[in-house]
């Protein structure tokens, strides 16, 4: 039986007085990549933030590794790595310093060679590692953030528009990395606009529209979800 890592059950969330998510239900299995697709304001980021405990459910519930988020925020954050769209790291620190800083706060001790190995894994150029992030491109910052996630060995990874602003080569590299992490057992919940990228790496794709989950597409055994089908459903409002 597949173990469930993430679960949203009849989840409704408001931001202020504005309802954003209405009664959505889905789950993500351990090691699965689940992509939530949707237009602007569909509630994608709200879903992620609710899983991370930044927003409380209005009704329904969210669980991470079988623990209700609202009662176990610290546990959830300890077990999760979060990559926001802008890869929010410190521009005054270099790649190594950023990683060391966040790892020390997360109380995850890693050696210098571990850090170099993680940076190797994301193919961040060695000569760039000592430079401050203020001189990095978005793709490079994204790589540092992913290295951090790898080093934290968090069982759950939340990605918010991870490929937005990346060049095609960087997107390819990123997709390969996520596939690799997933294969290693990391559960990934990503929200994105990128239909083709999502279909390439996700085992399932959920379609959010105006706060409701209007469809879930599953990849066939050994294959990929058809982006055209998702695109059509997206255009037709599922």
């Amino acid at each position: 039986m597949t173990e469930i890592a993430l679960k949203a059950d009849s989840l409704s969330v408001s931001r202020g007085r504005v309802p954003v998510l209405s009664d959505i239900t889905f789950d993500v299995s351990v090691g699965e990549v689940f992509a939530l697709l949707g237009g602007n304001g569909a509630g994608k980021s709200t879903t992620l933030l609710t899983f991370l405990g930044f927003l409380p459910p209005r009704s329904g519930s969210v669980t991470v590794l079988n623990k209700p988020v609202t009662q176990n925020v610290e546990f959830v954050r300890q077990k999760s790595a979060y990559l926001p769209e802008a890869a929010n790291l410190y521009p005054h620190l270099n790649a190594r310093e950023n990683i060391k800083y966040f790892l020390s706060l997360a109380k995850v001790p890693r050696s210098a060679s571990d850090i170099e190995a993680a940076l190797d894994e994301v193919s961040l150029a060695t000569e760039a590692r000592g430079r401050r992030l203020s001189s990095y491109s978005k793709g490079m910052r994204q790589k540092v953030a992913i290295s951090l996630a790898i080093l934290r060995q968090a069982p759950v990874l939340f990605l918010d528009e991870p490929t937005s602003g990346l060049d095609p080569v960087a997107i390819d590299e990123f997709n390969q990395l996520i596939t690799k992490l997933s294969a290693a057992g990391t559960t990934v919940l990503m929200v994105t606009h990128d239909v083709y990228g999502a279909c390439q790496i996700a085992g399932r794709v959920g379609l959010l529209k105006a706060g409701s989950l209007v469809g879930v597409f599953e990849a066939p055994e050994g294959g990929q979800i058809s982006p055209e089908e998702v695109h059509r459903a997206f255009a037709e409002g599922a």
Partner: protein
Amino acid sequence: MQSLLIIASDEWRYWSRSKLGAAAAILAFILICVSVFATTNQVAAEKETREALQLKAEEIFRSQPDRHPHRMVHYGHYVFRTPAPLAKLDPGVDPYTGTAIFLEGHRQNSATFSASYDGAQAGPFARLTPALAYQLLVPLILIIVGFGAVSREREAETDRQLVTSGVTPVEIWGGKTIALAALAALLLIPMLFGVALSGGAPAVSAAFLGSYIIYLLIWILMISGASAWCKRPSTALLVLLSAWIALSVLAPRMVASAANIAIPSASQIEADMDVLVALREVGDGHNANDPAFARLRANLLEQYDVETVEELPINFRGMVAKTSEEQLTAILNEYAEKRMTQQVAQTDFVRALSFFSPFIALQSASMTAAGTDIRTHHRFLREAEAARYEFVQGLNDAHVEKLSYADDLNRNTSKEAWRKARVSSENWRVLQDFRFSPDTASERISRMGLTVGVLFGWALVMGGIGFIGARRLSEVKNG
């Protein structure tokens, strides 16, 4: 605790790499060191000078040759207020009130030699004392360096990255507060040295330093609190600069104006005119025939059972001088006490309103601890007046007892008569040594109670506001 220190040390790393913050902190540190060094040396030199001048003045007075005693009354004498040890750090009202008084008969002269005249052309900041540096400059530097400590994380959304790393929002705020506190502690080192080297009593030195620590803690908590509440660093900077101007610049002036309105005091000219009018009621002490002394004359004639003043066994002119001095001193003291009571009432009014501004509270606490407040100055005036009255009346006693009325009356008839109308210079020993020292440590500390309480209150409120703001940190922006 470990997370707090990690966050704090990263904040220091950020400041060291941010040229503006580092430059401001270094510049402030140098400025404070210069201020402490310069003021300490200046006040120490002034202390030495005044002590030497006091000894010199006493020596000069006592070494005067045989003279008519009333000439010595007008020859006069200087008394100097030697600064208290902590005046090296907070000269308080000293630069404005004067530090020396010329004592002579029939007059209560104002204190002179105020340092503020020296720097008047350069404005109120001509003398950047350590007290002023810590009261005004250090909070401003802390604002410049720390305004974005928390709001920067919020704007860049790195606060969420921190929170998802297992750090609580309160820990983020706490770490930033510790970083600011460490910076403030660094900036306090010159003052710590200044206090240690001042030679002040340990208890009052600790109270003095403690009041500055609480004051800077208020600003630290205000800065980290505002930074936690504001979503953008620019907003935090605006809020904090407005608070600095309101609390440190506007509030003290407004409260002082309110004190002047609530407790009006006559101008110096008005007060002097009132005194002159009152003094006219007292006779001229130089004129033994002034009708104002008819009663004295009658009483003495009756007491000694004689018909004329020439028959009195004492010098009637001396008695007139003594009585006149007693009467005019009573009037002068009455007006002086009235003026001092008004000044103290105004000071107390300002102190009572210190809950409006920690700047006012600290200024009051600092001057009280340093022994440079208005009450200490008033005590100097009273002690100086007591010394004046004592030596003038001592000389008048010599006039009464050691110089005959006849010799006194005929003193201008010939050179010989003039020489005869003198008393021995031994009589100049009526002048006592004058050594002014501030109130005891316990007295000063007890007077600090209200203002230190106000400072604690501000610190608690700022801590509470910051804590609540921190809990809102990493909240998702709505809309």
